């Protein structure tokens, strides 16, 4: 990586003290010149202390804002501290830091403004989620592909990288509730380019992500509403 390019990895974390140390150490191992920001989203455990000890900068949110508010804080911090690239990832170890390099590369080459990881771009990585979730994801993909006239295979993946232009737009227009599916629409409407790259998600370190049909339906309805609103909302430049 060139010296002049400042890269930040933002990791929202709520009560992740058991996983965080490993995740941060892994990032530093794969990427030397990178700053790590942990957005401590109202944790009741030692998340902040663990992250600081591991060498990350920590923003502690006084009350729990949820994933969208925490990610948005990462965008605001990146913007205010003049970072050239922001990588968003999860704390729970599902996102393998070895992909950060791949996420950043198209941005460094100025090919696109945003790079989003996709579990479904390669067939062999596809079988990585529960069935109700997969049905919802396929439906969402079709809707987003239609709305943005660009192929989107994995609209719920949080592992992504943004250049300065995208950081600026998203710091001002970040969605609430479930942000990932709405981000491509904001980008499309702000005339920013984005692309997906294949990634493989690791199994969750603690327990399985068990989303039932009922929960999936609720999530799906809420996301649909969010997508619709994002389509008609004003985008601040």
């Amino acid at each position, binding site marked *: 990586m060139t010296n002049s390019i400042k890269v930040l990895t933002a990791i929202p974390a709520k009560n992740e003290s058991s996983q965080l140390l490993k995740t941060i150490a892994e990032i530093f191992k794969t990427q030397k010149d990178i700053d790590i920001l942990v957005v401590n989203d109202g944790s009741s455990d030692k998340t902040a202390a663990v992250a600081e000890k591991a060498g990350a900068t920590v923003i502690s949110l006084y009350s729990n804002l949820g994933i969208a508010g925490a990610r948005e804080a990462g965008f605001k*911090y990146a913007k205010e501290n003049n970072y050239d690239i922001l990588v968003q990832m999860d704390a729970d170890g599902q996102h393998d830091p070895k992909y950060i390099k791949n996420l950043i590369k198209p941005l460094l080459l100025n090919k696109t403004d945003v790079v989003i990881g996709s579990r479904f771009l390669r067939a062999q990585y596809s079988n990585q989620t529960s069935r109700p979730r997969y049905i919802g994801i396929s439906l969402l993909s079709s809707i987003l592909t239609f709305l943005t006239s660009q192929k989107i295979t994995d609209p719920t993946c949080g592992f992504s990288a943004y250049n300065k232009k995208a950081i600026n737009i998203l710091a001002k227009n970040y969605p609430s509730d479930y942000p990932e599916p709405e981000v491509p629409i904001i980008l499309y409407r702000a005339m920013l380019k984005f692309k997906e790259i294949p990634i493989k998600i690791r199994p969750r370190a603690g327990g399985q992500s068990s989303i039932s049909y009922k929960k999936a339906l609720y999530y799906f309805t809420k996301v649909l509403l969010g997508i619709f609103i994002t389509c008609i909302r004003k985008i601040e430049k």
Partner: protein
Amino acid sequence: MKNDAEMTNIQILGIAGGAILLIFVLELVRRKKLLEGYALLWILTCVGLIVFSFWQKLWEEIAQLLGIFYPPAVIFLLTFIFLVLIVLDLTIKISKLTEQNKQLVQRIGIEGIKGKKRDKRNKGIKREGDRW
């Protein structure tokens, strides 16, 4: 106006209800339990209810226009519309508060780092001073 002499029970209920609610709302504002801005819709509702209850001819005509067989129901309809407006107004205000709260929490988090960095710098200076 012959209506003034003979008020129907529903009129009395409307006027009394409106007046009591109005006094209650004004008292809350006076004690600062309710901010003026939030009280406006309530006061309008109460005044509207009172005026409407007096003005029998108006609601009888509206009832005829809308095909409502029981004219006093117009008063309830109007009150209902106002209540919907008040609830909508409340959810708008809650949304605004939620947004402000989010921004505040993020701001405190980000400023907190700056404070920490400053403290570290200050400590460094002190240590250097001690050496000399």
